[in-house]
């Protein structure tokens, strides 16, 4: 292990060293938490020791139907995420393809993009009620407009020569869009989707806290009412684990799909 490299400006990385250090950092973090909690530097009412959180999670999963909450949140996130993606990807590419579409829609998209999602929640509840459709609407509002612009920007960055090559090989605009533009930017699209999925998790918790009687957000919020700090933290931990696992899974797919990179 060349530890010295770690301290050199922009030094080369070594996967084994990186993994070992990451594990150390994680253990250190848990250890620090344990020390602070068990010596009651902060009251255990506010900061339970790590194993209390793990026990709480176990009880929630086995006795409190938390598993159902997880499934419903995952379903909401993926439903809204997929809806957002299948709409944003074609629309974003379309915006970059024709000036008329871009010029007309970009100012509106840019405006809506800057609206904070929590501010929209009350309005969306008035419009869609407190059922599933309002959850989907919150997530969709929070991700569609962001994703459209990311996709459109990436589509614009496809080299002009690639598109001209397509034309001179006899491709029609829609064939160029599908076979060249979409394909060239696909690795970046997958990356953008991965990031968007992360935002979905932020917004779903907001939506579930405000108005829901199921889901991880609802479970966390209910536990808060009785100051069950371990359960609150178990809920947060669950989101973290789901996020980490999905992120790693998508990264793995990315590596497999795009071996040429």
């Amino acid at each position, binding site marked *: 292990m060349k530890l010295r490299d770690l301290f050199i400006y922009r030094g080369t990385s070594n996967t084994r060293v990186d993994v070992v250090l990451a594990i150390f950092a994680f253990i250190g973090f848990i250890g620090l938490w344990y020390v602070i909690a068990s010596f009651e530097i902060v009251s255990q009412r506010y900061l339970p020791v790590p194993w209390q959180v793990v026990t709480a999670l176990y009880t929630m999963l086995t006795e409190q139907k938390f598993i159902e909450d997880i499934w419903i949140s995952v379903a909401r996130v993926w439903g809204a995420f997929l809806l957002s993606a299948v709409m944003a990807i074609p629309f974003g590419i379309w915006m970059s393809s024709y000036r008329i579409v871009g010029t007309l829609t970009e100012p509106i998209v840019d405006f809506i993009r800057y609206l904070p999602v929590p501010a929209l929640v009350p309005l969306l509840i008035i419009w869609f009620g407190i059922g599933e459709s309002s959850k989907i609407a919150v997530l969709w509002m929070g991700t569609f407009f962001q994703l459209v612009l990311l996709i459109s920007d990436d589509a614009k960055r496809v*080299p002009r*020569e*690639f598109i*001209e*090559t397509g*034309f*001179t*090989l*006899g*491709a*029609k605009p829609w*064939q160029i869009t599908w*076979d*060249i533009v979409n*394909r*060239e930017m*696909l690795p970046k699209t997958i990356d953008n989707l991965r990031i968007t999925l992360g935002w979905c998790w932020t917004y779903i918790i907001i939506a579930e806290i405000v108005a829901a009687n199921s889901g991880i957000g609802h479970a966390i919020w209910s536990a808060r009412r009785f100051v069950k700090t371990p359960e609150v933290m178990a809920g947060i931990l669950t989101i973290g684990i789901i996020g980490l696992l999905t992120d790693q899974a998508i990264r793995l797919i990315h590596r497999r799909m*795009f*071996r*040429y*990179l």
Partner: protein
Amino acid sequence: MTGDSSFLRIANIDKTFDGDGKHHPSVKVIDNVSMHIKAGEFIVYLGPSGCGKTTLMRIVGGLESANTGAVYLDDKKVTGPDRKKGMVFQAYTSFPWLTVLENIRFGTRYRNDIDNATKEEISQHYLELVGLKDYANYYVNRISGGMRQRVAIARTLAAAPEILLMDEPFGALDAQTREFLQNQLLDINREERKTTIFVTHDVEEAVVLADRIFMFSARPARIIEEIKVADHITGERDLATKETEAFFHLRNHVRDLMRQQARKTEELAQQELQTTIAQTN
């Protein structure tokens, strides 16, 4: 205007790029250029950098439109890009998500004049013609720049264009690779006899490759001389041609023309810079 025997006819092309009315003045890049090209000819556009020769070729390819004048390919007016006008760019355009063979096969993708078996045959043929059989399954960002340009040439030929347009395709390559590819292009040309327009500012490259050179002036591009290389250098061309007396004389002549125009280009650039400075003050 019909009844002309020439395969490609460029008639009185003028081209001006519009300015924005503020920082960038409008620029005239092509000034009344006409020429006739016969089927199978290898034409080189030679001129100083930024003179408008590439723009002229892009107009022939339908990727740019002229302000006045027109281009006729086989007596049909060029209105836009299509498979008849194949193009090889200076930038690497082989697709990184495809292997060498897949890239070449992509050239046949939009052909509906042949069936799939023929497409495969053609792809294999051009793979061999550019000498990349051993690298068929390599992704193109694993191979060298020279190889990537060979892939681009093979892909373009696989689309069976009526005319091959090459925009400084060897411009980004080192001198040795460049010579190697020139030689290979001569071989390919012997086999294919494809009507070609090749844009370059490299004098030796122009003389060794061309049947005819059109020497362009500094911007806006006008034809200042047409050099019928084939009349001076007869017989088969290869790298050894560069050692012959005929080549030597012709190269010197063209080089002198090129130097004059390069000087004018420099002067032009200085003038423009001074105008810009005067305006900003």
